[in-house]
């Protein structure tokens, strides 16, 4: 069997050193080694978006990235994004609009939505739908999510609906 590899990275602002097998993907590393189970695994082939995390500022599918590829990287998971307060307003909008039901897609959805809001201050509904089209939700039918993201964008622009 292939030998373990030592990796060092920053996860949610904490330095992490670990011994991992080269085949271990980042999602399993976060979930099983660091017990950061907010990163969800829905398809394990890069389609559903539930495992979306931020790596060096960009959102990635953590099921399609190996843990060893995160060497020296800065990784932010939903736990980190929540604790920093960066998406407190977006989470409040999700709560007020009931933009989640079972909640399994929600961490990835919030990651992708915040990514959009960082790239585009005031996206229209079409842009929001397009940007979130890589994140599957089987419960809501998406409309409540689009509403919540739109509301957050407008609030951040200093306006209200």
């Amino acid at each position, binding site marked *: 069997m292939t030998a373990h590899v030592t990796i060092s990275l920053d996860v949610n602002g904490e330095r992490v050193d670990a011994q991992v097998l080269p085949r271990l993907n980042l999602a399993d590393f976060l979930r099983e080694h660091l017990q950061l189970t907010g990163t969800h695994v829905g398809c394990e082939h890069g389609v559903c978006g539930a495992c979306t995390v931020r790596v060096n500022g960009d959102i990635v599918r953590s099921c399609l990235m190996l843990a060893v590829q995160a060497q020296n990287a800065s990784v932010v998971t939903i736990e980190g994004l929540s604790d920093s307060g960066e998406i407190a307003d977006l989470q409040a909008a999700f709560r007020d609009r009931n933009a989640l039901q079972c909640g399994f897609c929600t961490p990835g959805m919030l990651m992708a939505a915040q990514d959009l809001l960082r790239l585009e201050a005031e996206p229209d509904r079409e842009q929001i739908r397009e940007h*979130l089209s890589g994140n599957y939700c089987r419960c809501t039918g998406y409309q409540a999510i689009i509403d919540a993201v739109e509301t957050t964008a407008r609030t951040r622009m200093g306006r209200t609906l």
Partner: protein
Amino acid sequence: MTAPKNSDGLSVLDRPNSYIGKTVPRPNLDRLMQGRGLYVSDMELPRMANIVFLRSPHAHAKIIEINADAAKRLPGVIAVVTGKELAAVITPWVGVLSHLKGLKSAPQHAIAIDRVCWQGEAVAAIVATNRAVAEDAAELVHVTYQELDAVTDMQAALDPATPVIHPSLGDNLAFERNFDAGAVDQAFADSDAVVEADFIFGRHTGVTLEPRAVVADWNVAEARLTIYQGTQAPHMVQNLAALHLGLEEAQVRVVCKDVGGSFGIKVHIYADEMATYALAKLLRRPIKFVADRVESFNTDIHARDHRCWGKIGVKRDGTITAFEIDDLTGIGPYSMYPRTSAIEANQVVNLIGGPYTSKNYRARARVVFQNKNVMCQYRAVGHPIACSVTEELVDLAAMKIGMDPVEIRRRNLIPDSGYPCAAPSGLRFELLSHHASLNKLIGMMDYDALRAEQATLRAKNIHRGIGIASFIEVTNPSAAFYGVGGAKISSQDGVAMRMDATGSIICQTSITEQGQGSESLTAQIVGSVLGVSMQRVRVILGDTDNTPYGGGTWASRGAGIGGEAALQAAKILRKNILEVAAVILQSSPAELDIADNAIVNANDGTSRIELKELARIVYFRPDTLPPGIQPELMATRHFVPREYPFAFTNGVQASWLEVDTDTGFIKLLKHWVVEDCGTIINPQLVDEQIRGGVVQGLGAALFEKCIYDDRGQLTNANMADYLVPMSCEMPDIDVGHVVSPTSETELGAKGAGEAGTAGAAAAVANAVNDALRPFGATITEIPLTPQVVLTALGRI
């Protein structure tokens, strides 16, 4: 509304500060939004091992030999267990119900013994210290198969020349139901026009975003099995696990934490889940099974694999004279356990023509075995088939006599003043609102303006269509669904609640939460009846050790049945609290009320004593109460509907879409729903149930299909090839309501979980045919893929 009124003239639902009918956020969402929920797939227990199932690559084959020697030698492997070995700890089952007369099936084992009957059936379990090792080991297990002919086509399954999958059953026909009401032949003979068509429905599945997951923990010293499972029906799981493992029910505890989507997929017991319970017992340690996505596609129940011939008769004035159908459905090699795979076809027979006054109806439904994955109940069981066949036939009839689709419905929908009444199939309707709903829908969508826009655009070679679909929905099922057939699936639910020593309420309910809002609606009802703020009501669900016995959350029953139990329990607790308060305050219960977490004067609302102070006295200073007073700050009530077997709801949907006649692509522009679920507890939660349900129906209408080849191989068992709706292609959905509460409960609530899924595909199909009318093309098949559209247009 007939709910009893209190002396103050208010029902328990419209007291001051009531939460009923108000949009309030669901409690405890932060947990899920911060990634701090606890799904079964997140769980780890000490000494926990992981299972990987080795699954058959063949649809039908004899197992000649299983050689696991090399796999067992791999470091980290704990055991490799075959079906024969596992049969020592778990018995097989047969998925039949006695009220589905004639339904037959064969014994099914937790892991296949001697023979596999579908691609994906487990042939061995590999248990290892972690999943990756178990997957490595699975590749080292050598299974020798002798391939058998696979029965895949459902029509061919009935051909005497086709091999019989279970020879002991005699043929491949699992179930047949024939029904005849009124004078169908005479009605057709008297019709001015008769239209018939073959309707084809694609087999699809639920695709819960969290796959099925179980952790089973056998504590040999306690002789007790704890099952952590994402299930909709914990007590059903408890009953069946005990039954097949030879345990008493008290030896099994089922705990259900957060569940990543259910939709009926997680209301059944799967063979691999049974195997997981058994392996925990066999290996005396916690065992975890989480399906991967390929396994989900190959083993989560499929649904809706139907071919249905339908016929409608109509008079020149639009009067519908008769419906007739012949439905054929293929359910895989076994009737699913314990709810059986005949329910969907049975529902189709029950529901066809349901919104209309016509009394002449004939139906045949046949359910056949085949070598494909098992098929069973998925959200809106049977409704999308019945609604599509009915509503498309109505549109075809309208087209034939040159009548507007709205007008033909107005002339045939059961009048709103015509209740109570019964459908030709015998279903009893307490109170529906088809006409009020249709009128509201027409107003919301501005029907005439859309028709004008459609005509204008047609001149520019832009082809848009309007589709309407009325529907009825089965909710609040009584024992008529499963109990009468012998299944130990409870149709009653219970709620126990107590006031703690700080005046807060702890409420245990037997309904479960998978995101619908069970926790919220329970807290809203309890808070409203008790006069306690929702923040002080804690709801406990999903634990057979810690909730009353009950059915769970499925078949749109949580609010209507579990909600009523909560209401009744809260009334008792309220009475008990007021009795104590009267003693403490030297008053009488009738002079007191509870509001804003305090005992108040009933007449002027003046605060007398806070609940936390009352609780302090009851729990810590009972010595200060008069002799003989024993406060009972806990109450339990159960509820089950008795008068009506099902509380039917109704509604109507409309789709507005554009068909690109060059590419066959369909763009959904807008969707409207008006539905009537009786009393609305939380408008936002109801609307979101409707929207989510619609989108699942739209998936079936446009994208979702499990594509099997003629050898029984599922060719698109991954998320890239099996398409589900994404945000970019879904329309905004407007939802409106008509409110006709059921008189069977004080709450008056009916279900809303399946209404969206029931009618969405029918509305889309009618809209596509409306758009294609200038081309003389009619499509009666879903999913409406570009290929289907272009074929109908004669372009390919």
